[in-house]
């Protein structure tokens, strides 16, 4: 029997409705427009780096949201192994795919900042290398899924990779402290901020805008996953 999108949404309360999707979409567009104005016009130009420093306002939030996406994969993967419920696997794979898109944006924006500042696009610096490895881990996660036809085994195998792969996130975060690195260190730490207030505010607006973008893309991806599951079930009937 054919299912409508509403029926698919009702099967899993975690899947956002189309109205919620529109809300995240509108919030993303408005906050991104505010961010563009703040990042390119309102925030003061960095006295050392000049204009390329403004890349920071979209590079850093993309990285933070990639970490958030992979944290969601980590939590959902634990839930898969504990409960065996397929809805957690749907959430994990959706967040992993969105996280890969955010990591791709980080790996493109980083070299575009590095070229005018360091003189080279890429260096095998610990943070850059561990970020590249993170991208490969979650690409492998997505590739692995296409090689395991049985849904239950696919969920278990990818859950293990989703948990183990997350180990790379704290390595990336602490890499600038653990090793001597080219990549700039922390600009915001508890009790210590190495930036003017206007730059911090722009960064925070960026973080909010990219959070809305993540929620929008995750909702779309999750709806597609549920539709795909419904189609697969229908094919088996």
């Amino acid at each position, binding site marked *: 029997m054919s299912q409508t999108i509403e029926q698919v949404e009702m099967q899993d309360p975690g899947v956002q409705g189309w109205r919620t999707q529109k809300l995240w979409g509108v919030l993303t567009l408005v906050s991104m427009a505010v961010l563009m104005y703040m990042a390119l016009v309102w925030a003061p130009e960095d006295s050392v780096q000049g204009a390329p420093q403004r890349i920071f306002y979209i590079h850093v939030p993309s990285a933070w949201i990639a970490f958030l996406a992979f944290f969601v994969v980590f939590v959902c993967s634990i839930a898969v192994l504990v409960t065996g419920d397929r809805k957690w696997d749907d959430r994990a794979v959706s967040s992993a795919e969105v996280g890969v*898109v955010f990591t791709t944006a980080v790996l*493109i924006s980083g070299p*575009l900042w590095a070229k005018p500042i360091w003189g080279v696009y890429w260096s095998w610096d610990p943070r850059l290398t561990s970020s590249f490895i993170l991208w490969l881990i979650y690409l492998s996660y997505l590739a692995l899924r296409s090689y395991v036809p049985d849904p239950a085994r696919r969920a278990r195998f990818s859950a293990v990779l989703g948990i183990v792969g997350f180990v790379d996130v704290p390595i990336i975060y602490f890499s600038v402290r653990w090793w001597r690195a080219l990549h700039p260190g922390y600009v915001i730490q508890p009790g210590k901020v190495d930036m003017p207030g206007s730059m911090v505010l722009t960064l925070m607006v960026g973080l909010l805008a990219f959070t809305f973008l993540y929620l929008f893309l995750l909702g779309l991806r999750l709806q597609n996953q549920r539709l795909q599951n419904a*189609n697969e079930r*229908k094919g088996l009937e």
Partner: protein
Amino acid sequence: MNFLIITYIALPVIYISYAVYLLNRRKQLQREQREG
């Protein structure tokens, strides 16, 4: 300045392309569902 402009064009293109891909995929899945 060029690198700034390229970045502020490239990143939105990546995110918008992915959103468009998801919307097209959704349409395709809904069509498959209707056609059985």
